């Protein structure tokens, strides 16, 4: 027996229609079905946040969402963050502030950071640390990650002022 369900999921702006097993996890749909390997599987137990993507505009841990639960939804992965060939301010800031070492946690950190900046464009250091509590990093000690998110927030603010 293999229970298959049709899903239609918009991923990074493109509609993807597939027949999937009901038990297929969203992270495997993205990585294995669509070849979007930016989001990682770190813990597979909803702790580390490496699998974080946006589901209808909100950060979720895709190792704990079934692909069928995302039927009809809009998913954005790290691959969908850059617009027209230019990096998202968070991607720029992680680069500039050395917000990564091995890079394993980075896609999830950036997606969690992007979720925060949408809700709170001008976060304090505490706000940033709290918003990233569901994302674990084995390398950096978090310091530069927090700096990068704050720098991206400032870049976003000055861009708004300039616009």
């Amino acid at each position: 027996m293999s229970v298959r369900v049709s899903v239609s999921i918009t991923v990074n702006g493109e509609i993807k229609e597939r027949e999937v097993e009901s038990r297929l996890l969203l992270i495997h749909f993205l990585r294995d079905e669509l070849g979007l390997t930016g989001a990682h599987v770190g813990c597979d137990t909803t702790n580390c946040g490496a699998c974080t993507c946006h589901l209808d505009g909100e950060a979720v841990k895709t190792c704990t969402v079934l692909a069928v639960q995302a039927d009809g939804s809009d998913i954005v992965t790290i691959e969908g963050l850059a617009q027209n060939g230019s990096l998202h301010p968070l991607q720029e800031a992680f680069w500039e502030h050395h917000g990564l070492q091995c890079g394993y946690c980075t896609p999830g950190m950036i997606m969690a950071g992007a979720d925060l900046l949408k809700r709170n464009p001008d976060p304090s250091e505490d706000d940033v640390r709290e918003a990233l509590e569901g994302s674990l990093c084995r390398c950096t000690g978090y310091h530069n990650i927090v700096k990068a998110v704050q720098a991206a927030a400032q870049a976003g603010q000055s861009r708004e002022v300039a616009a």
Partner: protein
Amino acid sequence: MIPVEFEYAAPDSLEEAIDALVQGGEDAKLLAGGHSLLPLMKLRLAAPTMLVDLRRVPGLRGVERADGTLRIGAMTRHADLEDEPELGLISHAAGLIADRQVRHRGTIGGSLAHGDPASDLPAVLLACEGSVGVEGSDGTREIPAAELFQDYLTTAVGEGEVMTEVRLPALTDYGFGYRKFTRRAEDWAMVGVCALVKADNGTCEDARVGLTHMSSVPLRATAVEEALRGSALDADSIARAAEAAAEGTGPPGDLNATPEYKRHLARVLTRRALEEAAGLTAA
């Protein structure tokens, strides 16, 4: 980690959901946010043969205020509650669950139906003396908090029933606090305490204290409540009352904490939660 195979339905109405659940038999399960159920299924500690997903059922999400009662749809997510701070204690406690990603998926109905003694919202429901509304093929009924939590992962919600609503007295004239102790910021509570106090000119008119993870079900710290009622609402009487927080509890020991350590945590956190509720300290 991949769950075992299961049939899946995402019905468009509550009636169809109840039908699917009843037809699915004893191994059919409702799926809300999936953030308690899917981790268990991935570890194969749970292997339902059928999942009935509530995501398309209309009318189960959002908060209504009516006659001093908050009526919260069962599919309302922790993040929804967190983002409405004017709801008071329930918003505050929901915002302390896990991390924002988890709070974007987990629901109040799932939290209360699952019956995990480490969950935060059961103690809140108990301390507020709220209730839940459930619907099954025989109609609707209301289950008061004091009867809902029966044992570890066991609640009074029947096999063919769907929790539709959570009812909480708004308790707007109470101060509130919630404290929990965790190893890492996002972790489950080793012990959690929620406190509500109503003051009248510096005297405690009423106190409610709910304990998380001090037994296989959430508990009221009645000895603390009794000690505080009628006494001055100051640091000294709070500290004295909080000493009784572990009375009548039977906390399970685990990797993180021995029962004795949990009793200690209950006393300390009860004092802090009461101080927060009385406005003596910030959250």
